[in-house]
């Protein structure tokens, strides 16, 4: 079985052009897939760490993206079906909740959409 941490390892492979577009992004976000949760830390657009949130005694983050595990799986399918192909498609179906300080996410939306689609190609 592919774990969330396995999936998110591909975030380290973000291309230079997208890293450049996210040069003002320095944050830690939580990816919540139900039983599994991961913290992704970004420095100037580059992912510097992906860790299991459960391994932290007091995990901290600026914003969180929460969706059921099967929704993340469908989102990361090599060819996602309509309705699972974009974070906002999940929002529209009320399957994704975005919580916390949303400013980094909304002000760098194209960056985060490109970043979080990476497990799809992996």
């Amino acid at each position: 079985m592919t774990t969330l941490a396995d999936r998110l390892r591909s975030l380290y492979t973000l291309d230079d052009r997208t890293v450049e577009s996210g040069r003002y992004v320095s944050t830690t976000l939580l990816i919540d897939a139900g039983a599994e949760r991961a913290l992704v830390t970004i420095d100037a657009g580059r992912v510097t760490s992906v860790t299991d949130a459960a391994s932290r005694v007091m995990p901290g983050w600026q914003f969180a993206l929460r969706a059921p595990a099967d929704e993340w799986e469908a989102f990361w399918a090599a060819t996602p079906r309509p309705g699972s192909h974009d974070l906002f498609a999940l929002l529209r179906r009320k399957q994704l909740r975005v919580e916390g300080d949303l400013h980094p996410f909304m002000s760098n939306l194209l960056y985060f959409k490109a970043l979080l689609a990476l497990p799809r190609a992996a």
Partner: protein
Amino acid sequence: MAAVVEPITGRYVRVDIGGVTHRVYVEQAGSGVPLLCLHTAGADTRQFRGVMNDDEVLNQCRVVTFDLPWHGKSSPPAGWHDTTYQLTASRYSEIVVAIIDALDLDRPIVMGCSIGGREVLYLAADHADRIGGVIGLQSGGHVDPYYDTEWLNRPDVHGGLVCAGVVSGLISPTAPDSERWETLWHYMQGGPGVFQGDLYFYKIDGDVRDRLAAIDTDRCPVFLLTGEYDYSCTPDDTLGVRKSVVGSHATIMSGLGHFPMSEDYERFGTYFRSTLTAALAERERLLDGGEPA
């Protein structure tokens, strides 16, 4: 490669809208039955560049499209800096009828996408005697807000980037990169608060559901085309309209999203041209006073 001069011409038309003179940018191409095209929220006429370069369409139709006030090359009217832009259902119909009058369009087929796809339903219900049928692209009766549109218009978030970011997923994953990114570029060029102001019509004021029963497809034929990847106006939303509008026709388009004419014209054209043929035949029947097919 030799330079290509496209068949599209652009002009400015001064029209009275709400008692105020507006300078509206209009593009035209082709000759024949008028086909008036309405762009999506926060965008402009360039979305119809594929339609306006399609010889098969231009041989049958005088294609006309215009930038809504505040969009593209239609600057806001004088005094705009003291107002907040909000598109309403009544204002949208007033604008379209003003353009039909200004350009002397005789019973045009009106094709609109997204907010335009909603607006053509209002036109079919309320102005059937002025038009010759409608083609609704991504037409739904209503959309409940599913994100906070305040993010689209605040000084600490780049408006162009956030508008493009919000709509990027509405494009089919199969769309060619060149057309995908041109479509997003249009969103990146919108003025502050304009996309948000259009969404006031789309999500708040323009709930057309209670008007659908008033549409008489014998007086105004209705054709609906919706891309399968659109999660804003979903295929189910369009099929709901078809159910409410007796005699309407709906087709769900595979491999297309919310901006079919702009994101992948080659694919869209295969659906659009056959629908246009049917719409032209229905218009002819309508003007001849015949029975519906």
